[in-house]
């Protein structure tokens, strides 16, 4: 039935719930502690699991002996990741795992495991790893540096010679760590009947497939459940080494094993945003049109580059030139990835985009200064996107750009204020494989089912809103069941595609169901006040109907513009963000309340990228120096600016996601505002007080800063 061509669907013209604000339907569960996250699962006879990690950045493991660990009271199982000799490529790589009746038993057991290893030389910093004589991260290569990825279009050298203004700069972005509040992990039970995993994941289907593959169990015998999970941001799609280990421990111990990573583990081994070092050159003709662009960049994605593909993780490249139009496409881009002995990168909220944006938006402001034009005007002139053109206008007006903009560094006094802006673009789009199911019971109750998971974006509520809209019910009357691979397949929650995948699918499902209900009961309009009467006529059996994603209800391509106002203390170097005005579009708004929350969230994460966050590798010991929230600093409540969030509603475009575009321009806008305030540019993120004072020339003895 779901496969028969459906009549063309349209979103309702005058919706009651769509585009309005609906409270999160799982708010009560989350606010009262009743919501059970993956880390809260207490399966019958469950055991606690923990992982032993390498304390060397590079080593050859000769043996791992778990005998003593197994003798620790309470310990029921111990497994190694791999028996026999083994090469270790980064600090924190998984060696072995234990399961026992308590955390304390596991902690004792980890210390009882005997590991014999030969330490090997390592390189944990990009600049070290790039040296020709650097220790090689991978044994089978002669360089840690990947073959450059080169793009050349137009006539770049000639174009630069035609420019009336050319600016150059060198920009650095750090390795950023996802750090969702709930760490990675699972409770896994592996018995003869199959595998059941409560996973903290943003992709129950990909975890199912991953576990099936790793454990060599048929997919049909693996069930993944995710009722509630505590954030992912791109790092939680697979079962991970930790998932496989939990399963093996479960089989060995004949008991369910809950193995959640510690915060320390989280900082080492389950993903990050690659660093970047970008040498960029941009030119414009006298009319203010961008005319030539050149970029050479390198960065690290951890072990996963410049080597055999065994490391995974992908590269450190990013879109370039970012977002703005260069005349005749006069573009030369050379990007390389440097392998270092550190944990691999993973997709991280708008992969590549904040990185690309920072250098592009920074150099654009430099160009504006050089040409003596308003940075806003320069963007308006060179941004090809129609929606953003309106966003510049609306945002500038609300923000008071014209009144606030002044020459860089001209703010008087010790505390200088400045403003800056930057833009975002993101694809998104829906996944056409998405399916849904709805069950309508004779008592009128409705259960919507989909094999999707809620990262915190409000997925459950979106499904309820759409079902309620179609049936003429209230969202709180809809029971939403998600987070189970036994339900019809939903999308992985990534790429800002969730809303654009699930909304059309559940709209189709509910529309089908309503039609069937009406046909079956002979009631012409079963919605709203007729609902109960219609359902009663179903007799004894509930009506269960499936549906799938349909064309025409969603699209791709979301934009946004963010304006930042900052105050910089030029004596202490402390940057305070005073105000963020954020104008975004994402087509048809499904739930305004949770959509706004997503934008707040993106901006606040972008503030961390701008001002606080950076993984620090120690080149002497090879360790991550800040595997905690004490020195890996996350934006806090006291760092909040005033917000003005504006959404352009464009129902005619259908549903588009927002999670990623909201975080892309924030750091760039803040960096531009800082440069506008103090008249000099801090060209590496995060913009910490030491760098501000250095940029201001107040640190006479300063040596080159350390960025990893």
């Amino acid at each position, binding site marked *: 039935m779901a496969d028969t061509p459906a009549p063309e669907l349209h979103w309702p013209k005058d919706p009651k719930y769509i585009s309005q604000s609906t409270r999160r339907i799982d708010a009560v569960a989350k606010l009262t502690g009743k919501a059970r996250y993956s880390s809260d699962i207490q399966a019958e006879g469950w055991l606690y699991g923990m992982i032993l990690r390498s*304390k060397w950045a590079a080593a050859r493991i000769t043996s791992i002996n778990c005998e003593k660990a197994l003798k620790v009271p309470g310990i029921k199982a111990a497994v190694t990741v791999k028996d026999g000799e083994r090469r270790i490529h980064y*600090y924190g790589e998984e060696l072995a795992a234990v399961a026992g009746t308590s955390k*304390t038993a596991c*902690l*004792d057991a980890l*210390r009882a495991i005997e590991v014999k290893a030969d330490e090997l030389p390592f390189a944990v910093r990009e600049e070290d790893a790039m040296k020709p004589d650097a220790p090689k991260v991978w044994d089978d290569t002669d360089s840690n540096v990947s073959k450059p990825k080169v793009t050349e279009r137009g006539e770049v050298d000639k174009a630069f010679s035609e420019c009336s203004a050319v600016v150059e700069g060198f920009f650095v972005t750090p390795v950023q760590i996802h750090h969702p509040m709930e760490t990675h992990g699972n409770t896994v039970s592996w018995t003869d009947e199959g595998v059941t995993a409560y996973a903290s994941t943003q992709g129950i289907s990909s975890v199912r497939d991953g576990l099936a593959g790793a454990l060599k169990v048929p997919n049909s015998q693996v069930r993944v459940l995710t009722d509630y999970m505590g954030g992912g941001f791109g790092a939680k799609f697979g079962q991970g080494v930790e998932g496989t280990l939990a399963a093996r421990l479960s089989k060995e111990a004949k008991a369910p094993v809950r193995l959640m990573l510690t915060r320390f583990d989280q900082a080492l081994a389950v993903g990050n945003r690659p660093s970047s070092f970008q040498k960029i050159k941009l030119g414009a003709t006298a009319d203010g049109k961008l005319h030539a662009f050149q970029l050479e960049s390198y960065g690290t994605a951890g072990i996963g580059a410049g080597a055999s593909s065994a490391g995974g993780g992908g590269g450190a490249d990013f879109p370039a030139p970012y977002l703005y139009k260069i005349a005749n496409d006069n573009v030369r881009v050379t990007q390389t990835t440097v392998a270092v002995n550190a944990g691999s990168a993973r997709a991280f909220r708008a992969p590549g985009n904040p990185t690309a944006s920072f250098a592009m938006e920074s150099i654009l402001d430099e160009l504006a200064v050089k040409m003596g034009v308003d940075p806003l005007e320069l963007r308006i002139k060179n941004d090809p996107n129609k929606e953003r053109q309106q966003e510049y206008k609306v945002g500038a007006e609300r923000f008071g750009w014209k009144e606030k903009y002044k020459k860089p560094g001209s703010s008087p006094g010790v505390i200088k204020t400045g403003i800056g802006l930057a833009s975002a673009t993101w694809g998104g789009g829906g996944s056409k494989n998405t399916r849904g199911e709805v069950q309508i019971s004779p008592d009128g109750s409705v259960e919507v089912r989909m094999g999707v998971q809620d990262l915190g974006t409000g997925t459950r509520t979106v499904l309820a809103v759409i079902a309620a809209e179609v049936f003429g019910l209230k969202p709180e009357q809809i029971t939403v069941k998600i987070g189970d691979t036994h339900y019809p397949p939903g999308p992985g929650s990534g790429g800002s595609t969730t809303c654009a995948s699930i909304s059309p699918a559940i709209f189709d499902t509910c529309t089908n169901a309503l039609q069937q209900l009406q046909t079956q009961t002979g009631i012409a309009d079963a919605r709203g006040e007729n609902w109960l009467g219609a359902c009663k006529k179903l007799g004894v059996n509930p009506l269960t109907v499936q549906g799938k994603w349909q064309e025409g209800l969603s699209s791709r391509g979301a934009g946004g513009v963010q304006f930042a106002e900052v105050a910089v203390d030029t*004596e*202490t*170097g*402390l940057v*305070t963000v005073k105000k963020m005005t954020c104008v975004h579009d994402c087509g048809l708004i499904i739930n305004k309340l949770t959509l706004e929350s997503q934008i707040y969230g993106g901006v606040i994460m972008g503030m961390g990228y701008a*001002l*606080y966050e950076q993984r*620090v590798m*120690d*080149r*002497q*010991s090879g*360790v991550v*120096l*800040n595997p905690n929230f*004490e*020195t890996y*600093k996350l*934006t*806090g*409540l*006291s*760092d909040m600016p005033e917000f003005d969030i504006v959404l352009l509603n464009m129902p005619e475009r259908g549903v588009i996601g927002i999670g990623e575009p909201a975080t892309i321009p924030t750091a760039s806008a803040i960096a531009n505002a800082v440069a506008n305030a103090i008249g000099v540019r801090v060209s590496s993120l995060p913009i*910490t*007080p*030491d760098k501000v*004072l*250095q940029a201001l020339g*107040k*640190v*006479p*003895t*300063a*040596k080159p*800063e*350390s960025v990893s």
Partner: protein
Amino acid sequence: MKSFAYASARSVDSAQQMVGDNGQYLAGGNDLLGLLKEYLVDPKILVNIKSIPGMDKIEPSGKVWNIGALVTVAQIESDPGIKKTFPGLAQAAADVGSQQIRNVASVGGNLAQHSRCWYFRHRDVLCLKKEGDMCYARHGENKFHSLFTGNNCISPVVSNLAIAFAALDAVAVVQREGQPVRMTMAELYAKAFDNPTAHNSLNPGDLILKVEVPVTRTHSAYLQTSEKHEFDWALVSCAAAAKVADGKLSQARVALGSISPVPHQVKGANDFLEGKTLDDATASQAADLILKNAKPHGHNDYKIPMAHAMIRRTLLKLNG
């Protein structure tokens, strides 16, 4: 953390007896549990001292206030008397961690806390402070580290209260081998200046009983700068206190935190301020004196101009 035995003490004597040679006192536990969880200390017994009566009182008086070692940092922050009489101390307390930390953190624990150096706190780095061979920070990542030290370890003191107490010329009373011993803040940390493995001058078994704060200085102030606006360790902290009469300073004291293993105080600067009327130039000259001979290590050079600004600002706050 490894396992340990546990006991609650009813008196200072029994606490010292029970803690023995390889025990640790437990008050707020913020620092101790962090050390235990990273296997940086290995006590056989934890002796809960919160059960000792009488050590959790703030006792005002005309000359010297007694602040019990078990008084919480939250109490210091919110006590109306302290806010009025020692505003610098109240501010230093307000800037400690978060409310969850301040609610349990004790005055004694804040003073006795161990280094926050990220090499020291790292479970897999054997640094000089842990009796290893070298100070990794000296040749590595030292943006949070000291500008002054008398030994090869460049981990700084991070106790906010110690800095405020130092400016107020407060004295810690420490029970040592059955006797109360009085130590200035300089003395309380002196050992850490010379000895890389020391965090302070306390010997095993020593127990801070109280802090005596003289009311001599009518004005006090405290400021810190961190990378975040709150709940972040100070990059530089500064406290100043003085008697101010007719706009003139007397008995001025300035102390800085996070730039030396001890609260950084320069007698010459304190002397210089005697009888002065505070203005920007005077404050700046004092700052010059205080930061003379600062020795940065590559990533912490910025602390010199930052500290300079903070000395000036803190001093000028004394004007009212």
